[in-house]
């Protein structure tokens, strides 16, 4: 199979990300790279999902955070349900989140099919705002401002240690880290003394020092019990399942897992883009009227775009929830939409490799600006003596040394300035789409309109 040349940057990037956690940097650096890598991958997924609508169908979306939020909340709500405690439930929840978002994408998009351009943008924006207000306040569904803090993370397959009938006063050994215990109404549980921490399912009040509790019903989760801790179950009909190994959010395993998701998403989207659907999108984006004239059902293909975009956003949101291990409304404000949009426009709207590179640049830039570079004694003196006026803007004093660092309060200032500068010098984005018929810019259109003879020269320009 021949690999098109424009995929080269992506392959280089893939290679880099594959070996990055394996390079023997000092441990601190390596872990930080893995940590930031995970965040960047998640944003790549968001950016890929968002790109489908503005990049390929030409409709501006200012409320993409809505899907991230729906995805995260879907995962958070489903993953704690007692009847969803089977192995691989995390995957089920993730896909459910994607599908849920796909539905919302269609619901949001379907009534707006008549709208074009910025009017669609404002609907997406308003939708995200309404949803955020709902999530912040509708306690029964979303737990309001507190959100879901008790988030179990992705666990690999666990093993059951006891299911079914047991004589009274049986003690169940608890694996380190916790597990899931299901028991019938009225079961009596005895907890170990010694002040360890447990974490019941919602709705079960617990006075911490008590060591005997009568529970109403349901499933019970805990964690952070020491190895060998135990819970005594004085009841028949319980089941206890030790947890599987947790994929730690800040681990190489999670890093590679996210990388795989990104690669799968890229492959799927590239395939879609080259299919009949992708070509229909392109036709619609270039010229809606001629697309219609050629028998393309604008409505149908737009709906498909909304669904795909929503699905990916939902998956991304769910993954972010697993990664961050907490879901609260504070994580989903307007600026998330802005950042994702900035990623794709910076990279090159409508080009997968642009989206990937743009996200990698922008999100890691945000993290890079947090780091400082220590300067040697010579440079330190130079900075202290000659560059006082730039102190606390570009560098900071650290003891006798100087650190080349953007201080926290100026980080976003620099971020904003970089965004403006990059767009001025490269308005098409870093890696604009290639090898496909691009829509004409307003300038080119104007030339065409005013001077039909120029048409023949256009191709060369």
């Amino acid at each position: 199979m021949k690999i098109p040349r424009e995929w080269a940057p992506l392959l280089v990037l893939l290679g880099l990300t594959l070996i990055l956690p394996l390079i023997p940097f000092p441990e601190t650096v390596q872990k930080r790279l893995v940590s930031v890598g995970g965040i960047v991958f998640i944003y790549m997924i968001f950016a890929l999902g968002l790109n489908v609508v503005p990049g390929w169908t030409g409709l501006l979306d200012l409320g993409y955070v809505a899907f991230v939020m729906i995805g995260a909340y879907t995962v958070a709500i489903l993953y704690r349900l007692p009847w969803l405690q089977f192995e691989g439930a995390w995957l089920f929840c993730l896909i459910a989140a994607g599908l849920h978002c796909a539905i919302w994408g269609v619901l949001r998009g379907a009534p707006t099919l008549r709208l074009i351009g910025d009017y669609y943008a404002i609907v997406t924006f308003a939708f995200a705002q309404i949803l955020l207000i709902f999530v912040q306040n509708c306690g029964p569904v979303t737990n309001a401002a507190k959100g879901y803090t008790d988030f179990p993370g992705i666990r690999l397959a666990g093993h059951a240690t006891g299911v079914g009938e047991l004589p009274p006063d049986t003690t169940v050994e608890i694996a380190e880290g916790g597990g899931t215990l299901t028991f019938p109404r009225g079961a009596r549980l005895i907890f170990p003394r010694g002040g360890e921490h447990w974490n019941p399912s919602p709705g079960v009040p617990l006075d911490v020092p008590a060591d005997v509790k009568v529970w109403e019903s349901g499933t019970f989760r805990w964690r952070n019990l020491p190895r060998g801790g135990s819970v005594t179950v004085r009841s028949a009909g319980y089941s206890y399942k030790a947890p599987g190994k947790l994929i730690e959010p800040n681990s190489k395993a999670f890093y590679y897992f996210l990388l795989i998701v990104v690669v799968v998403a890229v492959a799927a989207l590239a395939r879609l883009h080259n299919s009949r659907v992708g070509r229909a999108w392109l036709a619609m984006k270039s010229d809606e009227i001629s697309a219609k004239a050629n028998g393309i059902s604008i409505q149908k293909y737009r709906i498909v775009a909304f669904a795909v975009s929503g699905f990916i956003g939902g998956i991304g949101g769910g993954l972010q929830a697993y990664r961050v291990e907490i879901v609260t409304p504070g994580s989903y404000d307007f600026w998330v939409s802005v950042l994702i949009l900035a990623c794709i426009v910076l990279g090159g709207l409508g080009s997968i490799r642009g989206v990937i590179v743009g996200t990698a640049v922008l999100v890691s830039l945000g993290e890079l600006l947090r780091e400082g570079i220590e300067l040697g004694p010579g440079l330190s003196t130079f900075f202290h003596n000659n560059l006082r006026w730039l102190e606390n803007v570009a560098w900071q004093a650290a003891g006798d040394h100087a650190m080349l660092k953007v201080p926290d309060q100026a980080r976003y200032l620099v971020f904003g300035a970089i965004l403006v500068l990059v767009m001025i010098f490269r308005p098409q984005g870093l890696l604009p789409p290639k090898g496909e018929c691009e829509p004409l810019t307003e300038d080119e259109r104007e030339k065409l309109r005013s001077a039909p003879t120029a048409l023949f020269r256009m191709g060369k320009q």
Partner: protein
Amino acid sequence: MRFTSALLSLALSASAFAGDTVKIGVAGPMTGDQKETGEQLKNGAELAAEHVNKAGGVNGKKIELVWGDDEAKPPQAKVVAEKFANDPDIMLVVGHFNSSCTLAGQTTYDRVGLVEFSPASTNPTVCEKSKWTFRNLYRDDFQGQLLARVAKEILGAKKVCVFFDNDDYGTGLKDSFVGKAKEIGLEVAQVEAYTRDTADFSATLDAFNAKKPDVIFISGIYNSAAAIVRQARSKGMKAQFVGGDGLKDDALIKNAADAAEGLVLTSPFSIEATSEKAVAFRKAYNDKFGRDPGTWAAQVYDAVMQGAVAIKKGGLDRTKILEAMQAMNTKEKGYDGVTGVTWFDKNGDCEKPAFVEIVKDGEFVPHEKQLK
């Protein structure tokens, strides 16, 4: 040479002179819309580090503070937590600020084993979940119940309206206030939320005014509260305002001007009622930053000081530092700081008295009546 080598490993948080310093991570919102509270955190921590270092440091080593900006957003808090947890030089984390951020960081700190010492998260569940998490202020539920009693017993209210900030702090405080208020027979006429970026409270205040409440309880922080009381007074509303510790800051009085007069609040930290330590702290803070410390600055100051004590006992070993923290489990073994004595129960929560204060002549002074 070092410059280039550092450039090569860009993400390296420099630890070249780790030998002579002890690092403490301080996490909170240093940018974003809650930056101002983050600034207090920064000031309080800086002052504490300065004091510890002036007094000879910790076991002969100087404290170096490492800032972690979580922007008050849980995903950012996670990144910061991972950065701190993975840096073996960091011995203890003071933070995070918002409960949701403390909880987001908690799982990471817990897994790696690093003490997370929050000076500001009041969500009741924060400390239950991990033995590595501590805090040096009381929980929302305690304070909310106290405030309901203040409304009834000190202010003699019969009808209250509640205006709460729609984040975890405001909501938690509101829940316990409303629960207690109903229990002790206060009429809760209306409960309304606002968001932190709300600037115009007129509509809700007019609605409250129509209900003629005796007391309006503001469950939020000082910036919004200043705007609320000022807008209310300029409408000629006469109701008594009551608030929690989030209101205690110079900026409340500065921003609300005369409208703040008579506002009643609870606070973990009262200059007049506590030791000369508090007076000295206020002076030192005022000398350095030119303003009086608010609740958070004092809390952070104490947290860093107490953290330094734990490091002194535990040495450069994260587990031993945890044990040193856990050992502060009675009032006698606790740390006596500017906000009173901090000692931990088995969850890592602390018991502290709350003072009832009132704004009088542009100052926070203890209320003449205190609750027992």
